[in-house]
């Protein structure tokens, strides 16, 4: 019974572009209903429900009832655990700098 939050589940969940897109949308605006998440995507409501289930099983998305609304939240904790597993104690600042450099340069090209 360590399926929930297991590293396999996290990678499986992240392997699909639709699921990454759902995470991106929750990252932009956290706490959305199923209806919010279905708006403006080219997949069916059923497909969104299925993807959300996979994300929830991986503990990447948490659903919380607020009154009559079920809101979905991005839970970054499993991604942090993956990060922590392979990023060394002293590398994080230098890596952050490289990502910043890449973003700055790519922003300029636009």
């Amino acid at each position, binding site marked *: 019974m360590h399926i929930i939050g297991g590293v396999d589940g996290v990678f499986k969940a992240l392997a699909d572009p639709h699921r990454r897109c759902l995470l991106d949308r929750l990252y932009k605006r956290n706490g959305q209903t199923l209806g919010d998440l279905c708006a403006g995507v080219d997949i069916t409501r059923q497909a969104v429900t299925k993807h959300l289930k996979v994300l929830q099983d991986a503990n990447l998305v948490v659903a919380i009832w*607020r009154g009559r609304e079920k809101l979905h939240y991005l839970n970054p904790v499993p991604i942090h655990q993956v990060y922590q597993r392979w990023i060394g104690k002293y590398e994080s600042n230098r890596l952050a700098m490289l990502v910043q450099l890449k973003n700055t340069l790519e922003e300029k090209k636009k």
Partner: protein
Amino acid sequence: MNQLSFVYVIYIASTPEKVWEALTNENLTAEYWAHKNVSDWKTGSKWEHRRAKDFSKIDGAGEIIESVPPKKLVISWAEGGNVEKKSRVSFEIEPVFDTVRLTVTHEELDSATLRGITQGWPAVLSSLKTFLESGHGLDLIRRWTEER
């Protein structure tokens, strides 16, 4: 729940009593959070988030809104003790088979506090999990606190 809310869930191989103890015993929070969380944890009491290595520095403070050991703890959180910027943190502890599901909800945040918080909680919770499962917190929290 307003829009500026965050929910974090982590599964820890432990018991609700141990998780509660780890959240409320200042000597234990010092081990994985680099801060002593000081209070008697009774509803209505004050609490303080003091640096373990420099006890005079208070990085956060607030009140205990609800305290139901070992299930639920709700506190107000004023960053740096600045009461103007008060937010609310809930810890919910539920047993799930042989593990514990810890849900941390941070609500009523202003956007300035938001950035620090969103970076902070996943690390603190990972450190808590590592501490309860292995007996050692993550070194990263200690280093972050010292570099602040």
